[in-house]
């Protein structure tokens, strides 16, 4: 087992909203009444059923309440255990599934306020992602600008399975805002379920939806690259969160081959896809969809042709590894330091901004 080193950045932890009522203090009177009088209870996505094995490692599952809902548990089980200097919170709450753009916006604002007050304020190692819903790009940009004033927010969080491919120009004001404000874009596994959750329709099973996340990351990466997002925003960094990464080399070979022959359709793609990925795209470490043989995984690292792509993560409290075996076998000390410390800091410039404990505006 490769031992993790102290001082790393955990780039994917999931604080859980205990219940929709947890957000009531952060909603205005109208929305508070909507929630209570219309009998809305919770916004749990099928992507992570509370009691699914993938949603929580058994030793991280509390006796009561949702996994990841207790800050003390997160401290003990993730932050202290892996001795990280920072951890980035990516709340997975089903706000994106809601169809009404006003309702979605109200819930996102409440969720972001809840995160700041009940997590970031209580634990100085934590940083946050601004959750936005894409039903209204205008509202999403406004929410980004609002939350960005708090330097503890380092990222904008989007889901990998949404309403449209993420490279589409309608979304570009979000990317412009993020680049302008020094925020990274985080694209996380999960679906809004506004489209079938595979490339070929609605599968039958939860396991099928989960496997399909990797294919969704692939098509999103194609979209982001060929639509020219990084030609327009060369300084913008995007992180694929809980995506897996062992599919990356063969995916890039295929994209590169077609790009060479089909350039006339997207002439603004000014660099080879592999170069764009090297400069602008990163991947959180867990889950590692690893081959049974560690030698093969090291060959795969060679196929990736860059040691800057991976960012340490536990994916707490999701069940991706056993015990302390968060890092794959056979990694060199150099690579461990890159994955745990150097690469995350290079990707999240806001980590360096000093923070005083402050509340959201």
């Amino acid at each position: 087992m490769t031992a993790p080193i102290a001082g790393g950045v955990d780039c994917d932890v999931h604080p859980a909203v205990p219940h929709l009522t947890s957000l009531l203090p952060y909603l205005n009177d109208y929305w508070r009444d909507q929630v209570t009088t219309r009998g809305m209870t919770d916004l749990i996505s099928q992507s992570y059923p509370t009691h699914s094995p993938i949603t929580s490692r058994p030793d991280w599952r509390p006796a009561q309440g949702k996994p990841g809902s207790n800050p003390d548990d997160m401290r003990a089980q993730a932050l202290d255990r892996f001795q990280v200097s920072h951890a980035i919170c990516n709340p997975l709450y089903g706000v994106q599934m809601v169809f009404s753009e006003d309702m979605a916006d109200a819930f996102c604002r409440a969720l972001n306020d809840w995160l700041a007050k009940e997590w970031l304020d209580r634990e100085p190692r934590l940083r946050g992602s601004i959750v936005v819903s894409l039903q209204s790009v205008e509202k999403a940009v406004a929410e980004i600008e609002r939350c960005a004033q708090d330097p503890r927010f380092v990222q904008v969080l989007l889901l990998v399975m949404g309403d449209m491919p993420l490279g589409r120009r309608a979304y570009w004001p979000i990317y412009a805002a993020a680049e302008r404000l020094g925020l990274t874009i985080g694209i996380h596994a999960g679906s809004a379920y506004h489209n079938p959750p595979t490339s070929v329709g609605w599968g039958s099973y939860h396991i099928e939806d989960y496997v399909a996340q990797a294919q969704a990351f692939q098509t999103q990466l194609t979209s982001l690259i060929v639509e020219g997002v990084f030609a327009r925003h060369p300084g913008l960094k995007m992180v694929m969160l809980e995506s897996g990464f062992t599919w990356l080399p063969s995916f890039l070979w295929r994209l590169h081959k077609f790009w060479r022959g089909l350039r006339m359709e997207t002439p603004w793609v000014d660099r080879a896809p592999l170069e764009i990925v090297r400069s602008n795209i990163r991947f959180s470490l867990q889950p590692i969809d690893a081959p049974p043989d560690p030698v093969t995984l090291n060959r795969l690292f060679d196929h990736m042709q860059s040691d800057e792509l991976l960012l340490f993560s536990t994916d707490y409290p999701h069940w991706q590894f056993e015990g302390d075996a968060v890092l794959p076998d056979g990694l060199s000390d150099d690579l461990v330091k890159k994955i745990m410390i150097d690469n995350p800091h290079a990707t999240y410039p806001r980590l360096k901004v000093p923070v005083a404990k402050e509340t959201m505006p």
Partner: protein
Amino acid sequence: MTRHVVASVAELPPGSRKFLTIDGRPIAVFNIKGEYLGVLNRCPHQGASLCEGPLIGLAQSHNPGEIEYARQGEIIRCPWHGWGRSR
């Protein structure tokens, strides 16, 4: 250098091309806007008959959604994988 008579001027108007074989090598001769050019009819990628492709221009863009299309008729697009070859 050996000279080969390929065609009369009237037989090769602008935009047209003719195929020939010289010393066993497949060649195409183009009239690109009044200029005559000979090209080996073999794509460096996978050996396709490059010169059967369409003559197109060069599409460039400095801003996604805006395309500057220049040099129309001066680029041969390989009929297989679409690699372009300019004069």
